[in-house]
């Protein structure tokens, strides 16, 4: 479905200041030292003022014209807002610069009782918001675009070859650039029907590949995908409210209903939820949003409800909420078997208690603060562990303990001064942060090479050393003894 908003920007201005409705005004921005009109309202357009004119020329035509400043990117911002607003009708809405919206309405229209009523509802709501709007539904984006802008009576293009409906339309309806359009007009090709039946080779030679591509797009032979303003969530439940909702109890009830439905959907797909977003669409067009994250895949409605319940207070219902949308943007596989695997540490109830605890901690100090590590098959100390993606993830390989590793590993190795009797010998003493440590015993070296396929750098020769008091350190020499004196670092403390 393509929606054409020819006066979106000026309609928005008029909606904000209704007294402007009957007055001609334009929005102009400075370009090369002149004020060029970007948008003209319908009254001004009626007097022959259009975008692209200089504001001074327009004033000459219409002395009482009001020229307002135009902020760069305002059109796109406005269309994006409208596209987000349209998410109440379909999960896939895209902006279509410079003056339209695209909605993928597959599988949505039947909720409104058919495409005709669906389209009328959208048009009525947009008109109520104050926009002049035309919309057309067709099988392809190209055909819908053409019908919305050039169709005598834009409506619903019947399924089949959409090109049949486009035949009486001018060539511009195929989204051609100005050059091509002028060329066509010069040749007398005033309707799509007058050239569409020409052989493709002729069209390509005369007008280039661009025209053929546009024809293919309109006919549905070339794939064209709108870029949605918001990636649609696979797991999503919606609850329209017959009456606008304003109380916390009602929100909680809606939330419970949605969670139960979503968890049923997750169970069917064998998935668990890792994050959830509840969006509340208010009748004044505002969208209120709360989000939670969990530490492991969950599909227990009660637990999720407890997490979301804490945040219900953040929703400002305003005049009332007409639609709730619960989405699960991040999900992870959660089979019944895995639930039991995780429960090996205790009963499932205790396990839930742990997940609840971690969710609470994450809510207070941030989800990034909680980490669990798994072994990774690397020798380089920093890479020998990796973060576990979830609580249920089990190690794929065994933990290695054949080489000594310090219990405290500094995040960054720290420079030390050493005195070494001979190359490839452990140091006799080292100075760290101004303090001198005399080494009595040492083990090593253990050479750890950089993994060249991951990172280039010097090799490290690690030594385990013990000072006079018995404290043990992990030192390394960075690089071999070559032209330069290699540097030494302290990398950890042994227990």
């Amino acid at each position, binding site marked *: 479905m393509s929606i054409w908003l020819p006066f979106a920007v000026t309609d928005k201005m008029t909606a904000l200041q209704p007294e402007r409705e009957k007055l001609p005004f334009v929005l102009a921005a400075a370009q090369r030292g002149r004020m060029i009109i970007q948008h003209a309202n319908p009254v001004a357009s009626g007097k022959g003022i259009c975008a692209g004119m200089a504001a001074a020329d327009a004033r000459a035509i219409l002395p009482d014209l009001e020229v307002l400043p135009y902020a760069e990117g305002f059109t796109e911002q406005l269309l994006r807002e409208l596209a987000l607003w349209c998410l109440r009708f379909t999960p896939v809405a895209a902006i279509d610069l410079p003056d339209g919206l695209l909605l993928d309405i597959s599988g949505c229209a039947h909720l409104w009782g058919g495409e005709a009523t669906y389209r009328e509802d959208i048009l009525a709501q947009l008109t109520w918001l104050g926009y002049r709007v035309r919309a057309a539904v067709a099988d392809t984006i190209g055909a819908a675009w053409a019908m919305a802008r050039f169709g005598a009576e834009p409506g619903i293009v019947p399924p089949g070859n959409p090109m049949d409906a486009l035949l009486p339309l001018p060539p511009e309806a195929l989204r051609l650039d100005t050059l091509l359009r002028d060329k066509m007009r010069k040749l007398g090709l005033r309707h799509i029907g007058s050239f569409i039946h020409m052989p493709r080779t002729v069209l390509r030679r005369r007008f280039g590949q661009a025209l053929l591509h546009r024809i293919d797009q309109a006919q549905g032979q070339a794939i064209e995908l709108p870029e949605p303003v918001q990636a649609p969530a696979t797991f999503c439940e919606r609850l329209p409210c017959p009456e606008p909702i304003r109380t916390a109890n009602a929100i909680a009830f809606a939330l419970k209903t949605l969670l139960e439905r979503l968890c049923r959907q997750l169970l069917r797909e064998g998935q668990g939820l890792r994050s959830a977003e509840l969006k509340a669409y208010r009748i004044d067009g505002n969208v209120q949003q709360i989000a939670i994250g969990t530490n492991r895949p969950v599909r227990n409605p009660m637990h999720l409800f407890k997490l979301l319940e804490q945040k219900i207070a953040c929703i400002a219902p305003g005049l009332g909420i007409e639609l709730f949308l619960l989405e699960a943007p991040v999900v992870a596989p959660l089979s019944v078997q895995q639930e039991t695997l995780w429960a090996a540490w205790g009963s499932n109830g205790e396990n839930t*208690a742990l997940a609840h605890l971690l969710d609470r901690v994450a809510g207070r*100090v941030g989800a990034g603060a909680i*980490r669990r590590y*798994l*072994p990774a098959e690397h020798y380089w100390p920093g890479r020998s562990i990796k973060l576990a993606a979830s609580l249920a993830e089990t190690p794929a390989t065994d*933990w290695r303990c054949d080489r000594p590793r310090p219990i405290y590993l500094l995040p960054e190795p720290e420079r030390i001064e050493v005195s070494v009797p001979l190359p490839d010998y452990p140091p006799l003493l080292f100075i760290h942060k101004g303090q001198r440590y005399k080494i009595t015993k040492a083990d090593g070296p253990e050479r750890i090479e950089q993994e060249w396929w991951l990172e280039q750098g010097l090799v490290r020769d690690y030594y385990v050393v013990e000072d006079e008091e018995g404290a*043990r350190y992990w030192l390394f020499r960075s690089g071999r003894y070559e032209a330069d004196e290699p540097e030494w670092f302290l990398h950890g403390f042994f227990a």
Partner: protein
Amino acid sequence: MNQCATNREQIQALQQEILSMQGFHATAETAQIDTGLGPIQQAFPNHTFPTGAIHEFLSLGPGQAAATAGFIAGLLGALMQKGPCLWISPCPIIFPVALKTFGLTPDQVIFTTVSRTKDMLWTVEEALKCEALAAVVGEVRDLGFTPSRRLQLAVEQSRVTGFIHRPGCVQPGSTACVSRWQVRPLPGLSEDGLPGVGFPQWQVTLSKVRNGKPGAWQVGWTDTGFKVAAMSLQSREPMFTQAAG
């Protein structure tokens, strides 16, 4: 001789009575957990390592802190048979691979980084209330009496064992913890005079223990677990005993 034995029995019976009045019960559950500390367990009431209690560890400097972390890891190895553990510290410095050496499964340890002391105490307390955990390790430098009392009350409900490590704490003050430990590194245990660093060895001082006898021991960590050389304050002569690991 006979008279002596009956006297001792009587004294033991009386001690048991006093302990049970003070809330120390030698339950079957606590008896099951063998920390492998051998002679050190004699210092505790009922001769068992108190689980479901808060233990406090003091350390100065990174060397002592690492030794303390190692000793705690050794204790956790025995405790974590029954569940996972939460290790809460202000910065992510623990290297999980090394924990394997101390007999615990590093992927069963959940690390939490909390920088503010207030959040840290909240997190430790919440974690101690969670019965699914076997133990909680918290690195809190400043622990006043009231917060420590809160932590102790939390574990009395949930029976989770808490280890509070206080690195760089100069004035420990008084706390409600059942014990106060200090672990200092000692020159390593090398077998038969072999060169090299050998097994780690610590001087473990139990400076305070509620209803028990404080003492000091030389404790090594070998492949088989703790190896305690009794060097308690009463008898200075080292007496090697191999503990079950």
